[in-house]
């Protein structure tokens, strides 16, 4: 679902280490990317490219498994057979995406086990929106529709990037996300046009989630660190503000159409510039939550840690000498 991988942890000095790279190989590498070729696991690549992609794909994978938790808690509460089965299938897809993405990241040399260790130790991040609670069924529907919608905007852009295994994983993920979008939209419409209790639940959930949704694509470009080299290497494919504007263009009219309101009086499209205007999100709060001080950070990591610890004996049992770790090919 949740590729806001471009939102955090971009290196502050994007040229670090480049002076140690072989200039001929580097020029060849950049020429390949400029021609639109994909970089494959065995190909030469600068250390910074490998590091940045590993971090990005890893964060994306973490976002999928952590993101499965707030929606997953509603599987056991989903109202009626139809929703219960769909919610299960939807959340299962997200875990499947994590599996695909960990494999893609592993082609760069870091094992899944190590990535999961870094996740529970707080060394690696995941999409910040999952540090907020989902107190009602309607919150889960808002995630299914709008967070997945945001993820698609992001992932369609990244699917045109330069690293082959990540692009191929994203193509498959986007196809499934398109179904999630329909599922989420259907669930939200049902609530928004339902009984007074349902409508109130949905509006309250949307009000709760809107500030987080506005931060989903990461800080404003004005505040972003220098990413020119990452754009040139097709690691980062669209700026945060471009993605946010595209999302608002696509979804705000749909939200208004079903009679829901958004808790931002300034929100309006400037028809002259084609850009949406809105109240600037609280980026200080965003930073605070990313750095661990959000309402659900501790809970999310605790669940993941418990899963890792409780399942350790199974993984030990699987690691017989005959089954040594093999890095996936692509």
């Amino acid at each position, binding site marked *: 679902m949740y590729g806001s991988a471009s939102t955090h942890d971009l290196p502050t000095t994007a040229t670090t280490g480049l002076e140690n790279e072989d200039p001929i190989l580097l020029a060849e590498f950049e020429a390949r990317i400029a021609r639109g070729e994909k970089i494959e696991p065995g190909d030469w690549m600068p250390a910074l490219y490998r590091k940045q992609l590993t971090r990005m794909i890893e964060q994306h994978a973490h976002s999928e498994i952590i993101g499965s938790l707030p929606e997953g808690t509603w599987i056991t509460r989903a109202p009626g057979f139809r929703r*219960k089965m769909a919610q299960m*299938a939807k959340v299962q897809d997200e*875990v499947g995406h994590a599996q695909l993405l960990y494999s893609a990241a592993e082609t760069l040399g870091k094992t899944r086990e190590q990535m999961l260790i870094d996740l529970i130790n707080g060394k690696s991040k995941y999409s910040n929106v999952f540090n907020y609670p989902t107190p009602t069924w309607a919150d889960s529907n808002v995630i299914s529709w709008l967070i997945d919608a945001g993820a698609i905007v992001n992932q369609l852009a990244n699917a045109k990037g330069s690293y082959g295994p990540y692009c191929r994983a994203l193509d498959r993920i986007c196809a499934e996300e398109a179904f999630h979008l329909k599922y989420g939209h259907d669930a939200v419409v049902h609530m928004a046009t339902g009984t007074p209790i349902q409508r109130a639940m949905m509006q309250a959930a949307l009000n709760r989630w809107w500030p987080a949704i506005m931060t989903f694509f990461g800080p404003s470009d004005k505040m972003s660190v220098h990413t020119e080299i990452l754009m040139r290497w097709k690691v980062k494919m669209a700026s945060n503000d471009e993605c946010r504007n595209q999302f608002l263009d696509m979804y705000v009219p749909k939200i208004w159409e079903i009679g829901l309101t958004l808790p931002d009086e300034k929100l309006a499209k400037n028809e002259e510039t084609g850009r949406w205007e809105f109240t600037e999100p609280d980026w200080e709060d965003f930073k605070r939550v990313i750095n661990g001080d959000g309402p659900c950070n501790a809970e999310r990591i605790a669940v993941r840690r418990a899963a890792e610890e409780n399942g350790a004996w199974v993984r030990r049992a699987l690691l017989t000498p005959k089954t040594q770790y093999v890095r996936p090919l692509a």
Partner: protein
Amino acid sequence: MDPKLDLLYRLADDQLILGHRNSEWNGLGPILEEDIAFSSMAQDKLGHSLQLYNLLHNLGEAEPDTVAFTRNAPQFHCCQLVELPIGEYDFSLTRHFLFDHAELLRFEALATSSYEPLAQVARKLRGELKYHALHANTWMKRLGTATEEAIERMQGALNFTLPYALGIFETTEAEPEIISSGLFIGEAELKSRWLESITKILAQTALDMPDLNLLTPVNGGRYGQHTEHLQPLLDEMAEVFRLDPTADW
């Protein structure tokens, strides 16, 4: 109770409750692949229960959503095995192994039931259940022959779970008629086929099959007697549904 209703409620409630339990593995599996596998099986089981509740609905019972989401524990006919919390992976895997072998054999037998609508459903379900059993066998054999730690855990889980598994085969007053009318081969016959089937797999592991004659089956579920775990499960399941019973969710 009418023998058809009696049989169908037991089958449907087992599938619903175990499907619900299996879905709780989301995010908690020992490896991601097992999160995904348990979710697949949970979806299948939910789907199976829905088909069986639909058969009940055709026989005059309430809508599947009403039947599943508004009854309380004493009105449920599932065996107690399926309602136990997921615990750790060793227990959930062992339950899955013991239950799904019984289910596969049950639906293979039901494929020739004298009640044609059920026979039709059974012919469809048995194909899916084959994969559930295959999944369970693979893991039982893998963990049951792995490290000392894994073997010890799996043996403990087997010893704990077997008395509950015997409760799958608890009969009701309708049993003689269920058999004589050709609805189903009956629980005793199913149990003997099941025993043969699981023994064959366990023989390929380092696990010991406890002497079943020394175990007391945990019965009562078929008569609405349940563990303290079922009602909270049902309350959770119906939490949203009951917020507004007039709503279409």
